[in-house]
């Protein structure tokens, strides 16, 4: 694997950190380099610090690591926050003329590059461009051709006029030449470029794009971190494809609007995070028992209650599996990578309609805000299939009428799947209700019909188990005695941890599970392994508990619930330690 390069820009909220980081990530992506980004909203000392981090390589990168090579520090705190990741030889770019940075001390062994960011920006046309001056300086330090930055600046500012673009290019060059002239040194970095074409997107955007590709036409939501980007992405774009986005007054309304649209025959979705899922749980049972296809996207963040809204956690799994009173089937899908966010969204819509039930599509904060590069054909639209399941039209409706002539949306069938009639279908008029109902959707408390309808709804799960592919994603050494299981967004860090462990001659088989319910049977894999570890971002091991339940055997666990995602090197260390100490059944 080629050397990776780790870069960050940090300062206070309001310093334009996000857009600066995004421009650099875009420049790297456009130069044919792979990129994996992350955001720090750390509050270890006090509020206000924020950073955008970029890991890049000519090879695929899919995790963050505990290392920082070049840091643009707009505040002294940015340096403090990153002391553990900075190393001997790390470069810190800062503006020594900024009042707060005048007395800043560059830690021993590190290289301070003092660039008058504000002054050079003003000379180029405005102080607001000081971060772009810093980007130019970073290009010089990293020996990264500045033309790539030009291209990203054009994308970012192109619609605001050529003059602004030109000013920014000039600002970048001012930073670049300042470093070249004042610091005549080789910083050992040499960011080569390639001819590869990449697209750069985050998990929320991939979910939004997947929804449009899948034919979603209606989205209702209420803004909430970290799911808001799904809504922001869809706003305007969904309209271009004949759909509509509504900002509801709350999550109660959002899910009910989506339910209404789905009853109208549209592919509908809502997205939210934990607190919103709590509210939506009120209507969840209605969606499920009325057998309405709906995709509910839960971009998890740290809970409970308001928790840590800008922090990572995979703590909602139990809620999605069991939330709501009574018993009714639902599916839970957990894409394991940013690209899979796209494909699993498409799949979620198909599953929802084929099996006529709510599908939780769950991502998490770290995946939602991570920008990652992919070859454009990763999202080959020709591969998208839309399966609407069992829908009747004016001609076929009569095969599904009761003896009294009423349409039967809950017809008792062998596979549990009943016909659907969209409003407007002649003779298809019917009732949908949260009350227990008969085949026609009419309220009933008849004991036999109750049992038949419960069984019918559950037969859909059995049908889905038989008909669909619920396989986990597998990598590593298939014959290894060490088995590591994970779900959701930890896959990237685990994949890279695997490389590090292999270098230490530790062989591991990895199963990354994108399906929480229904889920793959892991019994054989667990039985074949000597050591089994389940890795996840929560305290109680919610997925590990499911594995134990399924295989009737104890497994080891690595849990992280400090609000920060797994890093590849950190995870490799933890797995290594767990294996050296042997397995201790975690009670």
């Amino acid at each position: 694997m080629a050397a990776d390069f780790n870069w960050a820009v940090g300062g206070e909220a309001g310093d334009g950190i996000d857009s600066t980081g995004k421009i650099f990530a875009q420049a790297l992506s456009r130069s044919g380099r792979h990129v994996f980004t992350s955001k720090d909203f750390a509050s270890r000392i006090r509020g206000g610090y924020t950073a955008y981090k970029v890991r890049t390589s000519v090879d695929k990168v899919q995790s963050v690591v505990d290392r920082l090579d070049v840091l643009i520090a707009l505040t002294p705190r940015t340096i403090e926050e990153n002391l553990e990741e900075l190393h001997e030889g790390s470069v810190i770019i800062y503006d020594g003329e900024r009042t707060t940075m005048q007395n800043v001390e560059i830690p021993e062994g590190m290289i301070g590059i003092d660039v008058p960011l504000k002054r050079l920006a003003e000379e180029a046309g405005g102080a607001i461009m000081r971060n772009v001056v810093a980007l130019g300086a970073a290009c010089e330090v990293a020996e990264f051709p500045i033309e790539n930055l030009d291209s990203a600046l054009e994308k970012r500012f192109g619609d605001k006029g050529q003059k602004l673009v030109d000013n920014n290019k000039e600002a970048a060059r001012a930073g670049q030449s300042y470093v070249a002239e004042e610091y005549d040194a080789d910083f050992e970095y040499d960011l080569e470029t390639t001819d590869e074409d990449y697209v750069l997107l985050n998990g929320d955007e991939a979910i939004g794009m997947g929804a449009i590709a899948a034919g979603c036409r209606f989205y209702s939501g209420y803004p909430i971190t970290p799911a808001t980007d799904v809504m922001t992405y869809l706003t305007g774009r969904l309209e271009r494809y004949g759909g509509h986005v509504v900002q509801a007054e709350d999550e109660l309304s959002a899910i009910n609007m989506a339910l209404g649209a789905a009853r109208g025959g549209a592919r509908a979705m809502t997205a939210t995070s934990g607190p919103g899922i709590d509210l939506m749980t009120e209507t969840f049972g209605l969606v499920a028992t009325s057998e309405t296809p709906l995709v509910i996207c839960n971009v998890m963040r740290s809970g409970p209650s308001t928790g840590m809204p800008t922090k990572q956690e995979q703590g909602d799994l139990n809620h999605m599996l069991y939330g709501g009173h009574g018993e009714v089937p639902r599916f839970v899908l957990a894409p394991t990578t940013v690209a899979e966010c796209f494909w699993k969204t498409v799949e979620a819509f198909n599953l929802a309609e084929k099996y006529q039930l709510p599908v939780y599509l769950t991502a998490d904060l770290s995946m939602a805000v991570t920008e990652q590069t992919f070859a454009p054909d990763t999202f080959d639209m020709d591969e998208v299939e839309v399966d609407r399941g069992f829908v009747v039209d004016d001609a076929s409706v009569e095969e599904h009428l009761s003896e009294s002539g009423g349409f039967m949306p809950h017809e008792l069938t062998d596979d549990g799947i009943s016909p659907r009639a969209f409003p407007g279908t002649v003779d298809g008029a019917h009732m949908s209700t949260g009350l227990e109902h008969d085949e026609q959707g009419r309220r009933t408390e008849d004991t036999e019909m109750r049992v038949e309808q419960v069984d019918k709804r559950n037969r859909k799960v059995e049908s889905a188990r038989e008909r669909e592919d619920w396989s986990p994603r597998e990598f590593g050494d298939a014959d290894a005695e060490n088995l590591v299981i994970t779900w959701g967004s930890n896959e990237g860090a685990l994949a890279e941890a695997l490389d590090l462990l292999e270098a230490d001659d530790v062989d591991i088989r990895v199963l990354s599970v994108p399906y929480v319910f229904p889920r793959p049977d892991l019994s054989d894999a667990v039985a074949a392994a000597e050591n089994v570890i389940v890795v996840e971002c929560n305290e109680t091991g919610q997925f590990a508990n499911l594995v134990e339940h399924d295989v009737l055997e104890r497994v080891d666990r690595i849990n992280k619930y400090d609000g920060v995602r797994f890093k590849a090197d950190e995870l490799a260390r933890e797995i290594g330690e767990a294996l050296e100490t042997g397995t201790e059944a975690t009670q």
Partner: protein
Amino acid sequence: MSSDVRFTDFKSDKQPTWCPGCGDFGTMNGMMKALAETGNDPDNTFVVAGIGCSGKIGTYMHSYALHGVHGRALPVGTGVKMARPDIEVMVAGGDGDGYSIGAGHFVHAVRRNVDMTYVVMDNRIYGLTKGQASPTSREDFETSTTPEGPKQPPVNPHALALASGATFIAQSFSSDALRHQEIIQQAVEHDGFGFVNVYSPCVTFNDVDTYDYFRDSLVDLAEADHDPTDYDAAKDVILDSDKEYQGVIYRDDESVPYHEQHGVDENMSDIPDGAPENATDLVREFY
């Protein structure tokens, strides 16, 4: 849409379990007649019902329908109408459903001005749970949970609607069958959110707001020289706590419904069997 639709086509084969004499019978009849009169039929009509005695209406009517969660009928209706502008949407519920648990949605549904009809069967009592105060109960109305009365003023739904920017506000009485039907019909025909509060007496638990009370006290705005397009006149009627009115209180003839404001006019149930044309443009945006 067939021209020979009769209002009985909107009747389901389920017999209502409302108490004999319940106002909801008359309310429902007026709704069905208004739907038939305005050229709708069960297959192009979607009724959303809330929870409570009134919420059972979805079961007794024949159409596409959803009987939902308590208080959330309006958002459901909103979703149906946005996805299917070609479908007639009518939302029905009670005073508890609309002005208590669902009050937040009421305000926003009014603001959105989606082209649908909202019928609230207001009996000023919780009937299904056997007689507790509702948000429209009188201040001194004694019930099992308010032995000395709620001691708080009732919600004025018309005022709430007007303050939220309503474009159609009306009041009817379930027992005045002709006028009730007429008023609902005007709400259906209104280009936007047609809100009708219906006095629909509970004969079992409310011995104050009775048929006799409404019959004796109702002033019909149609006979009172009231101009519903006059905002100030509407405001005066709404804030007059001494009288009970029926009729169209306010109507904004300049109303621009949501689908026109936002250009939402497609039947969203109709989608291709693969990604939409030009979907690859979305990927290109990420270069």
